[in-house]
């Protein structure tokens, strides 16, 4: 097996497993850059996955055919946004500990999504969806030698959506007035307030947008990888997205890069048996790699990662 064949095996698989991570990590970036820690990404993603599975299934029954997953994405975006509201209310208005509130959100998602699955379908899992996001060659681009085969053949359209949205989020955060407000509120809310920026409102918008992204990430995971929703569909991807966000230093494009890298590690642990050199390495090492790297990054061994200054602190007007 030559080097190129190995790449052709790993790279597409990496991009596929990265798409949901990219989107969820972007959700985390939006929320945390505004100063609200979001441990609830896992729960938001889980709820999005549940909504994605349910509405793709219903879409098929309503005769939407191939449009069903895309319709479910729209619903999952709305559902993710709504599901982030309790976290926003608790951690922004009620000044709860943001980590605790995020943990509660994870509990709530796990309980609610399986409770509703049992209620709707009378079983612990949703029916398998028929209309998955298909693989396809991108016209023109797939004809480019080497790169075309690696990135644009047999690719999922959702992966391109994820990469595109990473650039959109980058543009929003760094090139628009709203993005400037979002960042200022996360770095020094009091200064931002003095300058007339509505801290509470900006944080609410950011957290809710973050929820929408994480919800979409979950729905895409179901439509492209899992195929249905059970209690174990989302088990740790949200936390891995959190890791990607930190490893990417709270920057949308950094988070995308980290998510792609973690996707690579995940796909290596699955496809590794087919690759001569990696066959002998126990997959434990590949499985723990993303988490070890994140810790090293935080400790400053792989480029220092610093959180937004005001993240984790509720804002109280007039407090010193």
């Amino acid at each position: 097996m030559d080097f190129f064949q190995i790449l052709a095996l790993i790279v597409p698989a990496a991009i596929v497993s990265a798409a949901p991570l990219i989107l969820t990590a972007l959700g985390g970036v939006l929320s945390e850059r505004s100063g609200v820690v979001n441990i609830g990404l896992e729960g938001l993603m889980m709820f999005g996955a549940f909504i994605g599975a349910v509405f793709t299934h219903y879409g098929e029954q309503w005769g939407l055919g191939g449009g069903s997953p895309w319709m479910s994405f729209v619903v999952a975006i709305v559902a993710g946004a709504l599901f982030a509201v309790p976290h926003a209310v608790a951690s922004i208005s009620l000044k709860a500990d943001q980590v605790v509130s995020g943990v509660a959100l994870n509990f709530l998602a796990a309980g609610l999504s399986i409770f509703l699955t049992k209620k709707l379908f009378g079983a612990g899992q949703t029916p398998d969806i028929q209309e998955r996001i298909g693989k396809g060659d991108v016209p023109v681009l797939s004809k480019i030698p080497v790169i075309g085969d690696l990135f644009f053949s047999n690719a999922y359209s959702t992966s391109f959506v994820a990469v595109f949205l990473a650039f959109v989020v980058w543009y929003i955060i760094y090139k628009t007035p709203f993005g400037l407000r979002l960042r200022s509120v996360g770095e020094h809310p009091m200064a931002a307030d003095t300058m007339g920026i509505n801290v509470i409102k900006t944080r609410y918008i950011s957290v809710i947008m973050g929820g929408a992204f994480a919800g979409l990430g979950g729905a895409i995971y179901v439509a492209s990888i899992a195929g249905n929703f059970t209690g174990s569909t989302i088990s740790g991807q949200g936390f891995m997205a959190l890791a990607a966000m930190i490893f990417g230093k709270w920057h949308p494009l950094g988070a995308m890069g980290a998510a792609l890298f973690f996707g690579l590690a995940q796909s290596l642990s699955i496809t590794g048996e087919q690759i001569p050199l990696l066959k002998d390495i126990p997959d434990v090492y590949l499985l723990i790699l993303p988490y070890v790297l994140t810790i090293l990054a935080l400790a400053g061994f792989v480029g220092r990662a610093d959180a937004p200054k005001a993240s984790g602190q509720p804002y109280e007007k007039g407090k010193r």
Partner: protein
Amino acid sequence: MNLIKGRLFHILVPVVSVLLGLLIGGIIMLVSNYNPISAYAALIDGIFGNGYNLGETIRAASPLILSGLAVAFAFRTGLFNIGVEGQLLVGWLASVYVGIHFDLPKVIHLPFAILAGAAAGALWGVIPGFLKAKFKVHEVITTIMMNYIALYTTNGIIRAYMLAPGERTKDIKESASLASPWLQQLTEFSRLHYGIVVAILAAVIMWFILWKTTTGYELRAVGFNQHASQYAGINVSKNIVLAMAISGAFAGAAGTMEGLGTYQYMTINNAFTGVGFDGIAVSLLGANGSVGIIIAALLFGGLKIGSLTMQSAAGVPTELVGIVIALIIFFVASSYLIRWLTNRFTKGGKI
């Protein structure tokens, strides 16, 4: 009316939160066409109804007490240990390893196995503690990462070195077991074991360390204000590492409840046990105090065990209890809301 302030308020918040959680859980059941009254009746029956249920409730509460203590101990020093889950897993593995591979009389073997679990958990907790003290890395993120490292590593170790048929390790030797035929017989053959004694002992130890020793005073001082502690000559870094070590030890001991008590072996876990995360809920509801934690653990253990009867007798999915627990955490965390509401009522609308 200053009654609502101080001690009473600390008791009021958890009680009101539990009631609100159960109330909203009832509304969810009503909306989804279940009968909340018969469901809650089944739930209560599932907790206290007979000896077996009561035994199972106490059994489920034992690791919850320890994981709650682990979260609370770190909290008292101003640290948020979300890594209880991972520390629990390595503690579980270490205790099972000692239980299988050593041949000692029970008086030595059992304490040795429990201490091995606690030591493994402590070691797993020290890593985030050290990173926090030395590099100022936020412990919430590192402990989450350490959870996954623990999950995959323990699975890898079992698969490589300790595998027995059935995706698990061999059974531990009888001399390292917490199981008690007497307690089982007393509770209509539930899986109740002596772990509850260990858990209550640990609660006493936590109270003693925090409130009756100089070390505990320093730990709490660091929790209140790191800078002031530093100024007063307390070694903040040392206390952070120490707090994470002791917290991890409690978590590791929670793992021994599963390894030496309930299961007598360790399985290859596809996902987390959930006991560590529940510990966050327990410590929050128990207001980080020893007595509160025991009560909260019994409540959550009861809810979990009772939900089984709720599903079989009233047809309500067990996950409803998960929703109720999530709501309780939200309400306790948002105690600002309850404080605001009570002040409204007691002061007749005036702030």
